[in-house]
């Protein structure tokens, strides 16, 4: 239980944060008109908030320590996490899966075009999340420029359509391949580096791509972007706006299923096992005869392929691309999806993508706090639950006794 000492500490913490945030939260100046606005109410919020946060984290810590002690003494069995119990019991997860499938199939019929549009966006992030999951979650390579590959796909469709009149279905694989090529081109020199350098180089690469798109007017039409990109066709049938959105929705569902299938098969393949092994211990991995660079490169290229394909779909959905859609924040959102969902976990990433994209849409009043919350989610997940909401289940073999 929480003791008096904890309450005392909480007071100190609250006081510290009140002083810490004082200049930025309380004072607001206007240097031109030379006016100061004092916002003392903010100080109260900070104080109360940090007091409660400290108590909550302390309570969680005490609870966890007590449980760990009981497990060590053998008084309590180590509990299987809830997500695992659901996923390993067919009589629970099958009905859930069926209900989910029905809901998603009936979605455009049940809700308005507006809602369907939002859902398409969410599904796009599901695929992006699953793609980045290969790179970050499975292979353990922190890629902060993932959005660059997304941009490559989107601009591939926009430009190929503009100059050569190529259609959606032709460009979809081209976009994927092009992104994969970029992935290999970037990855080849960089993947020999240690993990943290990789993070910063990919971050730089993402910014380079965006800056080039913004400044090279002859090539990419600069900041104003390219408009009038056609929506995907269906054997040349003319479709109304509503119909084409519904069509795009089902296309996206197909894309999600295809991604899940591929990623799932990959994870249990030879290369997938090599990725997991590489994430755990590079040196041991090399000692086992796994080609480090090639294995990493495959992960990088495959991750990029998904981003490229979703980029093509993104261009087709919005019928307009400009560099502003491909900022670092976009990469951060996708990373947040992977981290929240649980690195390497397919189910977790899907749930996280839906939650993180749909929640801000429906909680419009709080939409300005979106990025603040995303940042906090990254830190909190790493500190309190690094395995994510749905921990990845590794294939396990049991030896039958007797």
């Amino acid at each position: 239980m929480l003791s008096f000492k904890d309450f005392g500490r909480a007071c100190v913490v609250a006081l510290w944060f009140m002083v810490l945030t004082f200049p930025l939260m309380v004072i607001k100046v206007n240097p031109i008109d030379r006016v100061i606005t004092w916002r003392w109410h903010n100080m109260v919020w900070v104080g109360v908030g940090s007091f409660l946060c400290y108590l909550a984290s302390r309570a969680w810590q005490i609870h966890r320590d007590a449980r760990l002690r009981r497990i060590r003494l053998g008084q309590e069995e180590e509990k299987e996490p809830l997500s695992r119990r659901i996923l390993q019991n067919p009589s629970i997860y099958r009905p859930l899966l069926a209900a989910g499938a029905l809901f998603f199939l009936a979605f455009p019929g049940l809700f308005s075009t507006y809602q369907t549009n939002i859902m398409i966006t969410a599904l796009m992030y599901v695929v992006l999340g699953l793609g980045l999951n290969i790179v970050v979650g499975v292979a353990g390579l922190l890629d902060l420029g993932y959005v660059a590959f997304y941009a490559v796909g989107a601009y591939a469709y926009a430009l190929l359509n503009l100059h050569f009149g190529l259609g959606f279905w032709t460009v979809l694989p081209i976009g994927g391949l092009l992104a994969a090529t970029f992935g290999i081109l970037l990855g080849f020199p960089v993947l020999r580096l240690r993990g943290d350098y990789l993070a910063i180089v990919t971050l730089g690469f993402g910014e380079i791509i965006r800056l080039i798109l913004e400044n090279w007017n002859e090539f990419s039409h600069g900041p104003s972007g390219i408009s009038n990109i056609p929506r995907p066709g269906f054997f040349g049938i003319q479709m109304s706006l509503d119909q084409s959105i519904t069509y795009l929705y089902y296309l996206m569902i197909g894309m999600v299923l295809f991604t899940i299938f591929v990623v799932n098969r990959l994870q249990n393949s030879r290369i997938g096992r090599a990725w997991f092994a590489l994430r755990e211990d590079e040196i041991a991995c090399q000692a086992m005869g796994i080609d480090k660079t090639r294995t990493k490169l495959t992960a990088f290229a495959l991750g990029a392929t998904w981003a490229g394909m979703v980029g093509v779909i993104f261009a087709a959905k919005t019928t307009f691309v400009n560099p502003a859609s491909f900022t670092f924040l976009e990469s951060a959102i996708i990373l947040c999806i992977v981290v929240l969902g649980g690195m390497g976990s397919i189910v977790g990433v899907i749930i996280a993508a839906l939650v993180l994209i749909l929640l801000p849409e429906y909680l419009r009043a709080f939409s300005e706090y979106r990025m603040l919350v995303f940042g906090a989610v990254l830190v909190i997940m790493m500190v309190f639950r690094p395995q994510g909401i749905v921990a990845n289940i590794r294939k396990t073999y049991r030896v039958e006794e007797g």
Partner: protein
Amino acid sequence: MDYFVELFFSGLTRGSIYALIALGYTMVYGIIGLINFAHGEIYMIGAFTALIVSTVLSIFGFPLPAIIILTALAAAIWASAYGYTVEKLAYRPLRNASRLSPLISAIGMSIFLQNYVLLAQTPDFLPFPALIPDFDFMEPYAGFIGSSDLVILVTTTVIMILLTLLIKFTRTGKAMRATAQDRKMAMLVGINVDHVISITFILGSALAAIGGMLIASHIGQINFYIGFIAGIKAFTAAVLGGIGSIPGAVLGSFILGLTESFATGYVSSDYEDVFAFSLLVLILIFRPSGLLGKATIEKV
């Protein structure tokens, strides 16, 4: 020739600001092996604190020298407090976790702090009052070097010398070097490693805040996003010089500052950031250990 000299001095000014930020990166990396992504944000918070404090003081009618000193103090103190808190909240619990965890936590912290300032203050650019007056004795040289450039150069040089003395000759500095060399061994000889790490963050943050205040007053405007780009560039400088090495960070910063200044002056200013990023990618490909860094061999 005048143009060349002008670009040279503006490059030096840029370089010294990068150096003030890069030192924070390099010291933290040297000690705990973490790229502190939130460091750029600390610099931005330092600049914002300086803006707020200096405006409040000037409205209350303080004289200019008092404003400058108090602002610098306040910016350094608050930025250090932020640096200390960030380390304690986001990095300390992850000290024994895998390499990826603290890195993700650092990115999260950086996004969080950016948006915190955006929400608490404003998303727009704010004008920053010019704190440094035009000196009379600088009049003849005004063509290629301004008074604030001179102040930035002098301040940076003084800070560098003080920092070197601190690290070379004081107990704290020795403890820092020991921790950087071998953390476990440092613990065994009785160094409070947590304490040393906190001090490193505090020092780095204070330097970044001074840099933030100087450059903001030099350029004349700030917003919540300045920390991101400045952070990446300072990191580039640190890597260029060899991350973990303090003279390396300074050398790398001046090279980067001059490169940028000449590239934007003679080639094109649209691609200013592209030059820095490309330089970063190139160094990491061809000489990942940097100019002054030692190539390390990973031992099992």
